[in-house]
């Protein structure tokens, strides 16, 4: 399974678990499904220990035309 990156992410959607939106459902270009935790932020808006997949999603989402879909 290749690491997530701007060339391997197909779709991203927020999902709710335990009543909170805390996870992203990421489908990659090989059609594999990964559940990536949304990193929390501190008072200054800095991410608290994001995993590398979440950083890859943010990089992907910053490209025009790519959108993180809202939860149902």
């Amino acid at each position, binding site marked *: *399974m*290749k*690491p*997530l*990156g701007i*060339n*391997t992410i197909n779709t991203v959607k927020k*999902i709710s*678990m*335990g009543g*909170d939106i*805390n*996870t992203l*459902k990421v*489908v990659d270009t090989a059609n*594999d*499904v*990964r*559940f*990536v*935790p949304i*990193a929390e932020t501190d008072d200054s808006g800095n991410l608290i*220990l*994001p*995993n*590398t*997949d979440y950083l890859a999603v943010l990089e992907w989402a910053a490209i025009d035309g790519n959108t993180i879909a809202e939860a149902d």
Partner: protein
Amino acid sequence: MALTLHGTVSDNTAVLARPVGKPIIINGNMAVAQRAHGSVTGLGDGDEGYVTVDRIRHTIGGTTAGRFTSTQEFVNDIPGFNESLNINCTTADTSIAAAEYFALEYRIEGQDLAHFAKGETTAKPFTFAFYAKANAGFDFAVGFRDLDNARHCSGALFTTTTGWTRHVIQIPADTTGNFTNDANESLRISIILHAGSNFTEGTLATAWAGYNDANEAPGIDSIFSSTDNFISITGLQLEVGDYDINSIPHFQYESYGENLQRCKRYCQSTFSEGTDIGSATSAGIIITCAAGTGTGRVATGHQFPVSFRAAPTIVIHNQSGGTTGSGRNGDTGGLITMSAGAASTSSGHFENSETFGNDGAQLQFQFSATSEL
């Protein structure tokens, strides 16, 4: 209890100087391969990440025509080691574009590097050692990159031989730039096997300096120059201090169990030891029973046996193999779309995300979780 020294004081210096009890590099003897035992073929068409042996990243940059197989290889021709990582070129690339890059990388958290005292006036030199053999003599580079301060140093090129050779690369102390005390990547060690002009057009960075990709790998050969080519490595070892081939401490072994536990900070799964992640098997499946028929009515939590570096990405597998994102209805055998989430470094949560239909029936699934650097 008295400490007895054998031989001269200098004979014992190497052992006494080691400031930490555990080897800095985890799985340096390539013994643990949770994702895939044996070979993974057809690699190289994009960044590959972690493929076979744990903790060794296969990093691809640019677009290369070169393809390779990665294998956790059992070896019997190097005393003291049972496994190595073998990279075998299967498609050559003799027209190397500027941005092409292939390296085997080992990445280390900043909080595990305090004893290097990097950035202080008392900064320590360090030494990287490993065993390698190849089909011929190649010059490759080993790069050391400080991600916190955008600095790097390449030490020197090493030259492979057709037999196992222990290479020892000394890296000077760096009094500029502390490693950040956190769980993010601070130090990256790269064994660079293929690189385009972006990485070779400068002068090898033999002293610490601001990062300049042109100075990463000048003068190296390419593992992709011929399909005859292979390289095997094992015994990766990082020591604080300045050692040469005569004074480098012996490779510091851990039991397989200790080694595996340390690897689980970055990768875990429900699959058995010796079974590749994602295989079709019911061994290790998690079973939970439906408390209703609707979405989210079949749910369970799972506490990870080892805390992750950061909240992990989770992949759900089922016992049929192949498809990810689904579990299996134990009554009907049909696949059920699932979700995982609310993950912390210590636990995660799983539930069905489509109507289940069979109140009281089993939902069966496997999972893998990763929080790599």
